């Protein structure tokens, strides 16, 4: 039986006339890995800040572990959120951060943290403000992993990390998650890197949730159809088109929804090429505003 850890309905955050998060509804279940995906400024960090009680929503309802998170110690002590733009006290170095962490996270694993410091080659004695972007990300990743908080947020954990460090993060997260299941929310715009890690996707754009689905369902749910323009158009005529490109007499159209055997046979007869769409491409199609506007127009015309 899974428990609902987070329940948001109509959750809204406005900054003056700008609506950063616009009446979103979603739930997060216990012990799953969520991907909070979207473009820069889509509202990912704002959502996480509300979930962790760092900012106050303007509207809507929000329950984390059964109650409003802000100012509730019994909720907040189960959370860990090191923001991508996390501020640290001026005189702090990474050693100070790791020294203070066990006072705030009751499941803190110091040995695991030490191992991660070694893995990421994080200089412990250098002032936080002197760290490179990647090293700063490593501090957040180490705290997030070693805290073992029942609800852990990783805000753009890959920012500035080199390929080796990204792989280490990926491996350690999976290993530790298997041993100590917990709810993890990972926000990023580097989608393909984490695609295989995620169990459930929340795609957010301009403050709204565009897609809230299991990752397995999403993988392979979209297909790109390529071939002669006329043939492609006839094939996709009654389907949900989410992306469209064309060059001369050739067209390449991305459609949402699975294709059955009959569809595939028909595509082959028409001489069309079918290609699976990666998560990243799918999200580009879903959140690329210009593309979408163009598609709607063409769909109307068709």
């Amino acid at each position: 039986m899974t428990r609902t850890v987070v329940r948001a309905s109509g959750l809204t955050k406005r900054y003056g006339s700008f609506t950063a998060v616009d009446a979103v509804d979603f739930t997060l279940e216990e012990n799953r890995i969520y991907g909070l995906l979207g473009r820069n400024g889509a509202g990912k960090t704002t959502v996480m800040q509300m979930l962790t009680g760092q900012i106050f929503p303007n509207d809507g309802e929000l329950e984390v572990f059964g109650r409003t998170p802000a100012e509730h110690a019994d909720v907040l002590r189960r959370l860990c959120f090191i923001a991508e733009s996390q501020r640290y006290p001026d005189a702090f170095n990474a050693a100070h951060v790791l020294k203070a962490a066990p006072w705030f996270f009751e499941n803190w694993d110091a040995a695991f943290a030490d191992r991660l410091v070694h893995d990421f080659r994080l200089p412990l004695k250098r002032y936080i403000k002197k760290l490179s972007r990647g090293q700063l990300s490593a501090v957040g990743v180490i705290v997030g992993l070693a805290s073992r908080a029942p609800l852990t947020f990783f805000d753009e954990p890959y920012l500035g990390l080199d390929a080796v460090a990204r792989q280490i993060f990926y491996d350690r997260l999976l290993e530790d998650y298997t041993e100590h299941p917990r709810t993890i929310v990972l926000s990023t715009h580097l989608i393909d890197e984490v695609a295989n890690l995620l169990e459930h996707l929340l795609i957010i754009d301009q403050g709204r949730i565009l897609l809230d689905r299991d990752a397995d369902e999403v993988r392979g749910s979209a297909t790109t159809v390529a071939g002669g323009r006329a043939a492609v158009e006839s094939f996709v005529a009654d389907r949900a088109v989410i992306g469209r490109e064309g060059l001369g007499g050739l067209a390449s159209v991305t459609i949402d929804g699975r294709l059955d055997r009959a569809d595939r046979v028909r595509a082959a007869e028409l001489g069309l090429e079918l290609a699976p769409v990666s998560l990243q491409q799918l999200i580009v199609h879903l959140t690329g505003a210009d593309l979408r506007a163009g598609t709607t127009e063409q769909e109307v015309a068709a």
Partner: protein
Amino acid sequence: MTAVLEQPTVRTEPRSRVGEIWRVVRLHAVTPSVFFGIPWIILGAAWLVMIIIGIIAGAAGADTVKMGEGMRYSWAVLSPQWYLVAVGVQAIGLTMSFALGFGATRRDFWLGTGLMFGIVSLLNAIAIATLVQLEKLTNGWWLKVSMFDSLWYGQGGWLVDFYTTFALQLFVLFIGASVTTVFLRWRMRGMLVLAFGAIALALGGVAIATLTQSWPAIFTWFGSIGVVGVFTVVLGLALVFAIGGYVVIRRATPR
């Protein structure tokens, strides 16, 4: 299957409120240079300058008794106070953002920070009041230098020096911290309103006092309450800032 959590979560292990406040104190003390190291380096440097002046004056055969009297008007003993206003500002501006990321509540953070301020003020007050006595005992570090035994210090005994330093120290720390909570909650607009409000309040006070010709009465009152009375007012103001900060910080949002 999905079950909704209707009841508030049950605590897995008992954790007292005191622990949650105390960890904020420890967080501030993780870098002891901020609250203790740098203020005492500033004070130590000021003391060294005074001592060197004393040695030069002595070597030049100047009237060191007169020098000592002149030094009573030096503010060297207060030199770390400006820095400590900045410490109050940073305690809220940077450390709070960090503590919230670590899952502290604003309430516990403010209470823990206040407790830290109290501890710092207590220790500084004990140290300064004791140094005043030492300076008197050694006749100005054997050079007739008057650094700690200056201004209002050294007149009413150890306890008065302790009390006045404690009050001043709390005031200095809380004014920096509480003004920063206004910034965190209302940003620049809040700061402007606060600044203009304070100026308007001060001007209004001056206008009332001048128009009703009550300045002599005010000075007489300050004279009558004495050093201890004045610093009781300072302590009261520190308390007002402490309470004001608590109210404001409850809905403040770190950047």
